[in-house]
């Protein structure tokens, strides 16, 4: 049969099932990638053969296809995979099982009566791999390895909305390196880059996993501290200031003492939008600069009680 030759050759997985979800057949593609032999899965209930399918979403869609004759689509985004299958070589480190987009559709007899269904499996591991890589590239600052400005802007908006909605506390800290131009001018840009990277590393070690840390601009950094009030925020800011002041930034025999100025602001009932929160932190940072640098400042806005 021509269709048999095609089915055994195509670059998609095909499994056929009867109305009781018993596997009646599968193509070579499945056999090559499955952890079980073909003989071991044929004539077995698919949920028994692959217990990970013992889930409402799968059973609901099976019922729907049998009853309405529609197609069911299982996206990688929601389920990652339907059947645990081997991942091809280079993505093995990244995924435990092949990432799949799957389709479940009815099989009808000559009288158009539904007699079973078939599951089609598309391998999307490579697409997901590159998608993840792109997302990483779009969100990470190339030099320091921490988040970039675009990611920060997006997350600030999200965190702000979340904290406003549930009346929660939250702080942001904006800081920059004092006299950074002098560092570059006297010890070179390579040393300057070393400072930017080293500083990011030191701050990262000090903060929690839930905190969002990003490079805001040239030598400017920003931190979102969720579930943190201004008092706790000030402690964090002061400890970061002190860590940087005490650290010996030594690279290839070059050394220069590094200090930072910080500004902190916190969400309150009068905070209108993420921009005001950022503006208050920026004004506080300016205050630190004005009052002699290497310090933490906060502004008490007129609206605040």
């Amino acid at each position, binding site marked *: 049969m021509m269709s048999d030759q095609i089915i055994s050759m195509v670059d998609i997985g095909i499994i056929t099932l009867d109305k009781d979800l018993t596997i009646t057949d599968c193509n070579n593609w499945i056999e090559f990638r499955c952890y079980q032999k073909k003989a071991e899965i044929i004539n077995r209930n698919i949920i028994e053969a692959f217990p990970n399918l013992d889930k409402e979403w799968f059973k609901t869609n099976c019922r729907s*296809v049998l009853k309405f004759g529609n*197609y069911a689509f299982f996206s990688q985004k929601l389920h990652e995979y339907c059947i645990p299958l081997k991942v091809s070589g280079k993505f093995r480190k990244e995924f435990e099982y092949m990432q799949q987009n799957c389709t479940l559709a009815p099989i009808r007899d000559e009288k158009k009566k539904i007699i079973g269904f078939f599951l089609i499996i598309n391998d999307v591991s490579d697409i997901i791999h590159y998608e993840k890589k792109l997302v990483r590239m779009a969100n990470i600052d190339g030099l320091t390895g921490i988040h970039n400005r675009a990611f920060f802007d997006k997350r600030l908006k999200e965190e702000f909305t979340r904290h406003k909605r549930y009346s929660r506390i939250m702080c942001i800290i904006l800081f920059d390196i004092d006299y950074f131009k002098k560092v570059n001018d006297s010890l070179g840009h390579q040393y300057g880059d070393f400072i930017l990277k080293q500083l990011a590393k030191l701050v990262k070690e000090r903060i929690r996993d839930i905190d969002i840390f990003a490079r805001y601009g040239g030598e400017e950094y920003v931190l979102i501290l969720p579930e943190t009030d201004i008092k706790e925020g000030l402690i964090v800011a002061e400890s970061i200031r002190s860590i940087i002041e005490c650290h010996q930034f030594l690279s290839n025999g070059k050394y220069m003492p590094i200090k930072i100025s910080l500004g902190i602001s916190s969400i309150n009932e009068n905070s209108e939008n993420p921009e005001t929160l950022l503006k208050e932190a920026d004004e506080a940072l300016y205050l630190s600069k004005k009052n002699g640098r290497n310090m933490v400042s906060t502004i008490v806005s007129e609206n605040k009680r």
Partner: protein
Amino acid sequence: MAEKSMTNFNEMEKQILQEIMNIAFGSASGDLEDVIDVSIVLHVPEINILPIKQLPEYMKKSVELNESSTVIEEKFWGEFSGSAILVFPENLSSDLLSILSGQDSNSFDTSDADIMEKGILLEIGNILIGACIGKITELLKTVVTYTPPQASTGETEDFDHLLEDYQSENTAITLKTFFKFKEHNLQGNLIIITSHDSILWLKTALDSFLEAYR
């Protein structure tokens, strides 16, 4: 001109069409309860026959679209072919998402929440559309195949894009229904648009449907 008159429905045909839709949607809502395990009310569909070019205007007027709406579109083809467009007006609560998906909403990473919500709406939308189209085609004794559902937002460009595949000089039949999940605060609109070729086929299918009762 001759073409145009062929795609016009007389009163009798409109009534049969309405009747078929009533039966189809009635049985779809019953079966949906068995399938998704959530009670759902499907209202009697409102049938409109209008030129394609009036569709965007009609849709905007009859469906409350806003930026946070999620629009699920799925094409179906066979003797009866067209598009089904499902509009969920608002963001869904995480409780409802976990009921619909059978997954714990806490397992959703906040940064992925939008993607998860879209994925769940795609799956639930696919079943709703499948139920309605499935029942209509069953009554008209035909079978259709489907494209995977696509999700977009209620923004105008996104919505206009859905109609690009239809030629503007053709006629469209729109079936608009309002559905509501009983114990949950979720409702939406389903609009089915058929293509030109389907209308000609539909007229013959309506005739044979009526024939059975003569």
